[in-house]
């Protein structure tokens, strides 16, 4: 396996497939475009499987490394590789792409080729972000991935799609431009290297570390998103088509969190320790305050969007307590949230396709008409609320355990909001699914078809499997997380 450039394949197969799909042109060829997209997405998923089976979980070093010079003038390399932290996200992303292509199969009927191509190209770019080991390569993928999502929200989105697309693009760009300057600063400081691994070893004084940390924080906090720069997310989620929401929640939000682990912690360890209080504070605000905000939502997508922000609060909380349990818990939470939020948005999409409303008040008694769907939706609602035996429980529980060791009151604050989390999700579930049939729209609902059943089953396997048996996910992380924490514990100030 060592000779095959698996990561390059994982990046370029979807992108090339996307270009081929674009070439099918107008909607006359829509069936062909759909088939080719599915083929590309599945091929993209298949090449990522050897990443797991061939993964050496004993070493924290980068694996499946590819290194070619790209722009020698600035010492920029096409440098790819994954460790226990990033490997799972490449697979998760490729998996989500398959579900997204399937999710739009019957629903999207205008500009099908462009829609599917957008997701395929984005999938390749996102894989590039998770596997880039060169700072500029990371940045290039990071920025470029904005374009497909901007178009997807803007073309296939809801009534306020233009506003949401602009807000999404400009918010994220604002953060990443400062990130670019931080990268350039490190390029100069390191004597002309863009290698992220070199930057990890580079000594840095306290002041530059603090500035770099803040630049990273802005870039990644927008992407996560953390309170108070989260406001683009509910808009983007509400307006995006179902597929866009799935990718946004399942993958795009993880980029910010991943950035913390790849950049903030190892490059500025002293500043990370010093400013961890700030991040933990913002995380707790996200968990508690945004949890209550979610409770008040009347739009289902908005509710899940706010719950995403709260869940990502657990992730950033887990990172900045600097314990193996916390970081691993956060990583588990990220993957779990990929399955669960993806499934939640897909479920809402299933209802929206039929009744063309996302308002909770427009529903009631859905279980009477869609029993199979209601069962799946129940499972994902429970997972979103963090019920034991679902994946949502594992991550949050690990983070809370780590928080107890870190500080009782932090743990108390975080844990008590699991109640709020259960409240907003289950209350929404109750109002939408249970009770008598509320109106004739609900009365006309038809239960899920085979395609929707298949997608929901895929998500269910992920959410339940990870909840019942999380070890295959956690065991690959151990050495990388331990190495990261060992590294972060060392001061870089000389």
């Amino acid at each position, binding site marked *: 396996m060592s000779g095959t450039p698996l990561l390059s394949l994982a990046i370029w197969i979807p992108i090339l497939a996307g270009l081929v799909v674009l070439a099918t*042109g107008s909607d006359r060829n829509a069936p062909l475009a759909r088939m080719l997209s599915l083929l590309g997405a599945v091929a993209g998923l298949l090449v990522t499987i050897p990443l797991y089976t061939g993964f050496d979980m004993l070493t924290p070093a980068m694996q499946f490394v590819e290194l070619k010079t*790209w*722009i*020698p*003038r*600035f010492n920029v390399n096409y440098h790819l590789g994954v460790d226990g932290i990033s490997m799972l996200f490449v697979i998760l992303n490729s998996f989500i792409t398959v579900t997204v292509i399937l999710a739009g199969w019957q629903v999207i009927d205008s*500009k099908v080729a*462009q829609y599917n191509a957008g997701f395929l190209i984005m999938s390749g770019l996102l894989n590039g972000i998770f596997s880039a080991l060169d700072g*500029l390569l990371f*940045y*290039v*993928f990071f*920025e*470029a991935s*904005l*374009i497909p999502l*901007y*178009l997807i929200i*803007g*073309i296939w989105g809801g009534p306020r*799609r*233009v506003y949401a*697309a*602009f807000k999404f*693009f*400009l918010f994220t*760009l*604002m953060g990443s*431009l*400062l990130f*670019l*300057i931080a990268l*350039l*600063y490190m*390029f*100069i400081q390191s004597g002309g290297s863009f290698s992220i691994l070199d930057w990890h070893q580079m000594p840095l004084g306290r002041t530059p570390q603090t500035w770099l940390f803040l630049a990273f924080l802005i870039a990644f906090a927008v992407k996560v998103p953390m309170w108070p720069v989260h406001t683009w997310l509910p808009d983007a989620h509400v307006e995006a088509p179902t597929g866009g929401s799935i990718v946004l929640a399942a993958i795009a939000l993880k980029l910010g969190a991943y950035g913390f682990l790849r950049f903030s912690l190892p490059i500025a360890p002293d500043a990370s320790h010093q400013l961890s209080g700030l991040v933990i504070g913002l995380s707790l605000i996200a968990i508690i305050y945004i949890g209550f905000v979610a409770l008040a939502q009347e739009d289902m997508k908005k509710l899940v969007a706010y719950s995403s922000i709260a869940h990502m609060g657990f992730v950033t909380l887990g990172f900045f307590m600097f314990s193996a349990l916390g970081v691993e818990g956060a990583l588990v939470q990220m993957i779990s949230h990929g399955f669960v939020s993806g499934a939640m948005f897909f479920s809402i999409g299933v209802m929206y396709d039929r009744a063309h409303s996302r308002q909770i008040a427009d529903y009631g008694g859905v279980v009477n008409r869609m029993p199979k769907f209601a069962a799946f939706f129940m499972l994902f609602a429970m997972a979103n609320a963090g019920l034991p035996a679902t994946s949502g429980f594992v991550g949050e529980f690990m983070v809370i355990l780590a928080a107890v060791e870190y500080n009782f009151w932090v743990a108390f604050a975080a844990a008590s909001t699991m109640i709020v989390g259960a409240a907003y999700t289950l209350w929404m579930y109750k109002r939408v699914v249970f009770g008598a049939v509320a109106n004739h729209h609900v009365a006309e609902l038809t239960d899920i078809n085979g395609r929707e059943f298949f997608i929901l089953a895929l998500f269910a396997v992920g959410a339940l499997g990870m909840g019942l048996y999380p070890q295959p996910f956690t065991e690959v992380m151990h050495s990388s997380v331990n190495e990261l924490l060992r590294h972060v514990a060392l001061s870089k100030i000389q």
Partner: protein
Amino acid sequence: MTLADMQFQTPDLRLASAEIFMLVMACLILILDLFVKDKKRTLTFVATQLTLVGAAVVTFATTSGDIGYTFSNMYVGDLLSDLLKLLLYLTVIVVLFYSRGYILEREQMARGEYYTLALFATLGMMVMISANHFLTVYLGLELLSLSLYAMVAMNRDSVPATEAAMKYFVLGALASGLLLYGMSMIYGATGTLEITGVAERLYAGQADRTILVFGLVFLVSGIAFKLGVVPFHMWIPDVYHGAPTAVTLFIATAPKLAAFAIVVRMLINGLIVLAQDWQSMLILLAVLSMAIGNIAAIAQTNLKRMLAYSAISHMGFMLLGLVTGVVGGDARFALNSYSSSMFYVITYVLTSAGTFGMILLLARGGLESDELDDLKGLNKRSPWFAAMMMMMMFSMAGVPFFVGFFAKFSVLQAVVAAGYLWLAIVAVFFSLIGCFYYLRVVKLMYFDQPACSTPLEAPLDMKILLSANGLAVALLGIFPQALMSLCAFALLRSL
């Protein structure tokens, strides 16, 4: 003056052979056109294009890689001039191809003079690029400007075009005056107008600094006028907007290369000793240009006018690479900085050519199609060209994988390397603002419904060329190395 100085030397004509060829051919085509009966002037068009190709061959054949002076040191031939000239020919060839359909639909422009004026403008730019004497710079600049004034006014019955030509002429004359005044001051302080000679006198410390800096202010103002940076930018929006789009395309592309060349010649070759002085002036101009260009562009409803303000902001960004060459008397960043600016200019010309080419593609039947709303729903009318335009817009906004990102990246790294962190932050801040109006163009093309659903019709050569232009923006964005090192190499061998 010694006797040796008085001796008459036969100038080395080899260094100027491309210019001589261009001049002879321009005159011949002027005569040839008198005998062309064809209303379409196909023969004139072909002869003009062949002249440009021929000039490229001559330039390429006479490239030596060394620095050579001729005409009593008034003229210089080096790798930088050869590279810029080759790019210049290429730009003009592309521009003439794009303009062809547009001018054929306008009776007053479809004349042989259009092509001859373009050739004379090109000759002027070649002279600017190779100037090693302040008067040679002026000579080239005036030849370019006078040709452009006439080209802007060529569509005689168009009121906006006439107005634009008047504004361009009056303000251009003022700029030339400022430039000449600055030159005269420098002559007064150093006793020479030869650029390398001025540099020698300055190194020797034989010049009155007060007069020099006084002259420098006027020189920089004149250059700023020609580059179109704030506060000397007033002519840009009116001329870009009022001129026939084919001429706007010409003004927005090739002259930027020549303007960059005269900045290198006058400020870097000639007045590098005063770098601290002109750098601080240029910082101010750069920041103001990025601010006003980007903010004013948001308010525009006309695409040409929006691109005019965008050009102002881009020239401001390009200046950032020039202000970071010398830091505290230390010139070790010079090559890195200047080559990043050069890369920026070249990629800007490439992108700008494609963008105005798109406006020409949309304009049909003698009508202009230059309002932003004319782009509405382009994705429905032609997904391919909508994608091309989108790539140009993202490139201008500086989003990877398009070449504009690497242009911004290379300038920013020069700025950060020189220690101007605050300047880099200001630059990205205004880029963020600028991003808005480029995104709006994408929004119009992709998110909105078309007002008319007629498919685009254009000659095949234009379609191919425009596609190649768009793909170049993407390909250079994936593989920017070659062009970057070419710029660095040319400057290394020429400074």
